[in-house]
């Protein structure tokens, strides 16, 4: 056991109203320090809303406690050093270069009127290298493919060096190899640096394969949470996704979700 500090995440009774509509209510989320939690659920269930509220970007009720600190009490800069967030649909300034965009992740460490230090640039460069993007450093974001952009957004979040990582659909636009690369990287960060990771993931099998715990959201409520095998069950998926699926168990007990065709039995 190393003495490294990890940052458990505890969310109680989180509620968000948008346009007078209860988009999220009574959400409880709990992730041990260094754990990977995957949030799953149908479109519009409130997954992105949950992540944004946890980051403190939406007005919400309830408490978010990370590493023993109430996130609400933190100044924005302190919060950004505790939690990094990669949005589902980030807005990418078309002319900004990949390197400068990654460097934005260092914002919480730069004094208000200060400038990036050499160390900040080192870190941004190292993160790009790690995500296989070093060759793109000088490219404008507009000249990147969808999957490359998604990795650049991840790079920005990693440059933030926060112990809690919230990633909204980090793999949707990635090819198989890069999905694996990104998920493995996140997993190594989790295991190596003790990062607490919360991702939303649409691919249920991936979620079951990588996450320690799953949280199923439907209609703004948490309807199931726990180890993958307890959440990815045929009845739950049928009920909340309206999908006919078969869930097989792998040798290690992790569930594998497969769609059923009409003539499947």
């Amino acid at each position: 056991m190393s003495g490294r500090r990890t940052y458990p995440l505890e969310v109680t009774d989180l509620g968000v109203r948008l346009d007078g509509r209860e988009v999220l209510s009574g959400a409880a989320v709990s992730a041990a320090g260094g754990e990977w939690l995957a949030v799953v659920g149908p479109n519009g269930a409130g997954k992105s809303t949950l992540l944004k509220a946890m980051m403190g970007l939406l007005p919400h009720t309830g408490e978010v406690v990370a590493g023993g600190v109430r996130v609400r009490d933190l100044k924005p800069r302190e919060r950004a050093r505790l939690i990094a967030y990669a949005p589902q649909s980030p807005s990418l300034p078309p002319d900004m270069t990949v390197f400068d965009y990654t460097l934005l992740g260092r914002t919480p460490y730069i004094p208000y009127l200060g400038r990036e230090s050499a160390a900040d640039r080192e870190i941004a460069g190292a993160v790009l290298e790690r995500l296989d993007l070093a060759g793109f450093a000088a490219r404008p974001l507009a000249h990147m493919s969808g999957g490359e952009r998604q990795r650049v957004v991840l790079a920005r979040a990693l440059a933030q060096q926060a112990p809690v990582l919230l990633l909204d659909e980090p793999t949707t636009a990635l090819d198989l190899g890069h999905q694996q690369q990104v998920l493995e990287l996140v997993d190594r960060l989790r295991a190596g640096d003790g990062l607490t990771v919360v991702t939303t993931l649409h691919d249920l099998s991936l979620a079951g394969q990588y996450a320690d715990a799953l949280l199923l959201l439907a209609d703004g409520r948490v309807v199931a949470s726990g180890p993958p095998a307890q959440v990815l069950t045929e009845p739950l998926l049928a009920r909340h996704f309206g999908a006919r699926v078969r869930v097989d168990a792998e040798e290690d007990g992790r569930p594998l979700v497969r769609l059923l065709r009409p003539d499947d039995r």
Partner: protein
Amino acid sequence: MSAEPPRADPLCADSPRSDGVHHDLEPADPARGDSARGDSARADLAGADRVRADAGRAEAVEVVDQEGDGPGSSRSDARRSEARPSEARPSEAARSRPGRLRTVTLLVAVALLLASMAVGLLVGAADISPKGILFALLDRLPFVHLDSGLAPVDQGLLFQLRLPRVLLAALVGGLLAIAGAGYQGVFRNPLADPYLLGAAAGAGLSVTLVVVFLGGDAGVAIVPVAAFVGAVGGVLLAYAVGNTAGRGGGTATLVLAGVAVTSFLTAIQTFAQQLKLEELQRIYSWILGDVGGGWEQVWMIAPYVVVSTVVLLLHGRLLDVLSVGDEEAAGLGLRAGRVRFVVLLAASLATAAAVAVGGLIAFVGIVVPHVVRRLAGWSYRIVLPISFLGGGAFLVLADTVARTILAPAELPIGVVTAFVGAPFFVAVLRMTRRVGT
């Protein structure tokens, strides 16, 4: 709190997560395991400030080294040597600073401004020899004594008319351009201009009221003050309306508030000027712009020039951060609302100062930042300072054209800038169509 992963060791070689073909990834190496990684423990957040400590940074870089080609890597030599060339990249990327102002760019812009000012001083109705002008200017420097050979009349012309006029044109152009750049940054909209939030309408109304109700010469004396107050008032009104109307205080509401306030104030102004049609020409000649106010007006706006440009120049990096939008900027730890308020305040002050002595000169605030962006770079750390210099150069040249092309008559300077600006505006619209955000 146990830091142990809650299930089987994820680094175990035959776990499905660390075997198989890794696309571009060094596989997790069981030999190194957790102890090697333990070194890279996150900095303690108890004092979040300490995360910045250099130790923390060094560790982060180190993690990469471990992953990249730490000792005991199980990769084949071929793979390792392939990885070599890329090793130089992070520091290379770190050294190249694409989004930063280069000295060359700055020097070119300064040279451009000085050249345009030289043209502005040389060209005019009266013929004054260039050598005489140069010597007369140098003669004014401390410890320099030169005989310019200029007649007293020419000396007076140079120092009381042309020099203050060129300086005022440079200041007004610089202010409008840097304010335009600031507004574009705040609104994340390349078509924002310094008059967007009601500065022009406020100043226009205020000047009209003064001219109409104080009338003639009494009114003219306080026109600059009235314009300044009106411009600031217009912006404040739009800001107040925007903040009460919009729940989140977003930029879209603010723009709409600016539109509403502008048309409201313009309506009053139109009504007021109908009351005294004989003053119409006076009002219009103010609106179309003029930078012939002399030294008095140069000194009048000097403090605002200094304050607003310094504040704006200091916010270049923050405007770059803001370009990802309020929500994401907040996620990066920036108080977007505060940055926006400070930049808007400074840009509005700059606009008010420019309007006070120059009238409602059109297009400089849009045209110049765009040219700068196309030629020098996207970052506000470039766009703000270079716009200030370039805007100054542009307006000095425009004024030179305005007062010479129909000499001895003078064309209003706003006509010249709009003549160049309007076609450019269309070009900008066409160019930004592709961006689609």
